[in-house]
């Protein structure tokens, strides 16, 4: 797991781009936890790029007139919201980077099990049920098919069409 750079900026961004429920039940902490795991799987250059996006987002707010020179992390919702909207609507490379960061953070939010349950997505019981059904319905056929994989030539189900 990689440490999330500029955590306070990432948290503030998550509060604005994720649904409002992110502020409940320490979900923002868990989003940052997921983000750290995700960053850990990225190559160093990509990690640096996303860290750069956070810096651009944070410092770029100083140039946004309603912020009156403050950084993004220090803005209240009434200014931070329109600022984020303005940034995400831009079509420059910096905005592209921030849009990618937004996508990653949103993915981390929807990775949380309680969020998935809230929208009716709970795959584990379903997977368990259809896996059982598969074995009950097709057990012998499955075992025969699996045996083909490592069977020596001439053993098990013969391969069709071997040239």
């Amino acid at each position, binding site marked *: 797991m990689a440490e999330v750079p500029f955590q306070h900026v990432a948290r503030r961004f998550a509060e*604005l*781009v*994720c*649904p*409002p*429920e992110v502020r409940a039940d320490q979900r923002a902490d868990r989003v940052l936890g*997921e983000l750290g*795991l*995700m960053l*850990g*799987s*990225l*190559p*160093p*250059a*990509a990690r640096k790029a996303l860290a750069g996006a956070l810096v651009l987002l944070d410092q770029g707010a100083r140039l946004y007139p309603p912020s009156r020179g403050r950084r993004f992390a220090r803005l209240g919702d009434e200014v931070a*919201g329109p600022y*984020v909207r303005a940034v*995400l*609507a831009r*079509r420059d490379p910096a905005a*592209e980077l921030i849009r*990618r960061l*937004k*996508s*990653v953070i*949103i*993915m*981390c*939010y*929807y*990775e949380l099990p309680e*969020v998935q349950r809230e*929208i*009716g*997505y709970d*795959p*584990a019981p*379903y*997977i368990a049920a*259809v*896996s059982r*059904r*598969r074995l009950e*319905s*097709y057990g012998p*056929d*499955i075992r025969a*098919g*699996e045996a*083909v*994989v*490592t069977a020596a*030539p001439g053993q098990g*189900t013969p*391969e*069709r*069409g*071997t*040239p």
Partner: protein
Amino acid sequence: MISGLVTQAEVAGDLSLDCGAVVVGSGAGGATVAAELAEAGVDVVLLEEGGYHPTESFTAATGRALRTLYRDGGGGMAIGRPSVLYAEGRCVGGSTVVNGGMSWRTPTRVLSRWAEQEGLRAIGERDLDPYFAAIESRLSVGLQDPETIGRDSALFQAGAQARGWAVVPNRRNQLHCAGTNSCSSGCPTGAKRSMLVTSVPRALARGARLFADCRVDRVTRAGGAVTGVTGHFVRPGGRRGPGLTVRARVVVVAGGAIQTPALLARSGLRSASGRLGRNLSVHPNAVVTAFFDQEVTGWQGVHQAFQVREFLDEGLLLTATNLTPPMLAGILPAYGAELGELMADYNRIVTAGPLVSDTGTGRIRSLPGLGPQVFYQLTDYDAGRVARGVELTAEALFEAGARRVLLPVDAAPVVRGPDELRRLLARPVPKRSLQLYSVHLMGTARMSEDPRRGVTGSFGEFHGAAGLIVADASLFPGPIGINPMETVIALAMRNARRLVERRDSYGL
């Protein structure tokens, strides 16, 4: 742990190995070659940069899958206007562990084109049919059991058929797929017959040795022939581990259309054609998100059950594919409360879209400190076909009863009916505004009998380096317009068997 597998955790110091053939990459091409050669008694070392993750470790969790089974967390980006996001598998079994399992033979017209344009030998339908038959038997390729077809696929099928379009059930490498809809996270039942559960264990059962967590740095050479590879093990967190040297008579490179040309280029190999790393096709695809009144629960049922083939002559393939909540939320054109409202309808959503057989090409360039980077420019013609594919997809979804759709176009409004759709798409869609994805990357070491046109010959042999074989989708002279896995495997099997026939000349 399976017999014959060594992971980084078991390696304390540098390793030096000798073998007949070293195979780089354990995906569709590499695992197939390894199994074929091992079966013929060749001493095979199979190297995989990713980790070994058995079937029992697979769940539906998207984040876990992206971190462990994909290169760079699945977040590759081909740079261009627009950029194209792409994903590559990186694990034992390669992309076959995370793909949808679509298994289609190469279209005859594509094989004919390749043979004519590149003078390729033994690549006609009759030449390849026996290999396809063998693969389909080994990988249990067939149609889905009907109880596994989800409502999202059924709705899209109904919409397309109501339009009078040709719809075909998908052929997949599956052994009574349970329909868990977890293809892209690794099949939790092992029903998807990926290389992880087929050709890799087959190779190991015949004596091949597999080294996971092992990144190959270079192909080594002496004179005009390859002599093996050097590389290193990758420790957790990406830290560099012990080194590895493999001496081999034959080197088979099967790292996919990005990593293969990058490895060959950093090994100092050059193609007289100048095409190494060029000629990249990506089959750009786009996602249309449709909202229905009724419950769809698209995550219950097989990943892709049907393909709309009505527009293949235009280079368009349409299909419905469910996306997990993180994947869908990550691409929706919304955030904050608006995103929450859209995602609250997750169980009423169908996602579908076109795949385009592209005419444009891209290239792979290794940049200092960044490694291989992909550059790809969508042509105006292809952009027009993406837009047409999006329109057709949305038409089918409206026909099936969708109340509104979101288009993969920046700043596009919500579309609430076919008339609005036609009005919106009557004007050309700005190319830069398209949101595109790819999981089919091909063509960067293309086959041609003419070394001035291609990087490799008819049987994957690298022009100008004896003993070097390419065995992945890099070989394709161009896009094939359908799912490429079975073609990759067929070519790998064919080329491996030819290698065995000529083993004396390779010193095997």
